[in-house]
């Protein structure tokens, strides 16, 4: 019942501003898995991800009453999850600089199927900014303007980072095959 509430995020937030505890439950179930997946990716640890999940929702909760949603909720939550994950990594790896943490955060896990080895190793080689935008777009399925808002960077920067990341994927031998197959399928379809 709670999970299929037809109210929009904006309506639920308005209800929360009026002290509706049910509205929070609906929003929690709506975004829990997304937040948890992201936290798992950033921390690389399921247990740490659960802590990040709790801290993120506690942070969200503390915005009430008086919270106004100016963009999508994912845009608001993304930096909150990322910052909390980075804080946790900082505690674990005190010797590591903030820049280094940013470079390693959210990289693909070390354990993966052999068929994805090439893709994973290429992702490790991408500059952090390009990598992050690529994953936000195609794994988290965020729109370009949402990515720009979440990362607090201009839309043009998002586009250029994504363009460069895709250019690398197209030309690198580890991932070129994906695009060549795609071209063949398109040509066959047209023929």
């Amino acid at each position: 019942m709670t999970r299929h509430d037809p109210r929009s995020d904006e309506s639920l937030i308005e209800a929360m501003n009026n002290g509706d505890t049910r509205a929070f439950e609906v929003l929690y179930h709506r975004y829990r898995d997304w937040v948890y997946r992201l936290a798992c990716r950033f921390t690389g640890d399921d247990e740490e991800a659960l802590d990040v999940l709790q801290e993120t929702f506690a942070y969200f909760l503390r915005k009430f009453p008086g919270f106004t949603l100016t963009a999508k909720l994912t845009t608001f939550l993304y930096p909150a999850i990322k910052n909390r994950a980075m804080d946790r990594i900082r505690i674990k790896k005190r010797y590591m600089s903030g820049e280094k943490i940013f470079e390693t955060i959210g990289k693909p896990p070390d354990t993966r199927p052999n068929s994805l080895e090439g893709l994973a190793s290429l992702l490790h080689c991408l500059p952090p900014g390009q990598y992050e935008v690529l994953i936000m777009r195609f794994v988290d399925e965020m729109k370009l303007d949402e990515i720009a808002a979440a990362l607090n960077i201009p839309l043009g920067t998002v586009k250029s980072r994504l363009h460069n990341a895709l250019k690398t994927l197209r030309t690198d031998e580890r991932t070129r095959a994906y695009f060549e197959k795609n071209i063949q399928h398109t040509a066959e379809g047209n023929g």
Partner: protein
Amino acid sequence: MTEKTENHESFEDIPGELIANLKTLFDTDSMVPGSIDDAIIAEADRYLVRRRRFKALRWMAPVAAAASMTIIILSLLSDKDTAIRNDPKTSIPTIENITILDAFRVARIIRAGECGKKEWDANHDGTIDQADVHELVTAAVRL
């Protein structure tokens, strides 16, 4: 413009298999335990209920303060009014503090034929009569 178009085309032209593999790389089998769900929701309940109470109190406090102030002021005014009326020396308050009740009081005294006091001569014509009552009524209404 050309770059923008190129960018747009390249974003749409991503092989489905690549996107699926990207998602597979970050798939997680783990689930959020029910106990965590319960803890987060219970904390939210506590917090929002607390904030709702606080919000109600925030409105009630000024209202209660204003009500208390009103009661105190009314009580003081009432005391002052009674004191003025009960004071045999003044009988009638100064023209600034006059009320319609004072005008009635003077009117009754004149009708009873009692001797008027000097300070009741509101129009300063040397006599205490109906004209002074009119003067007091006008002053009370104006106030």
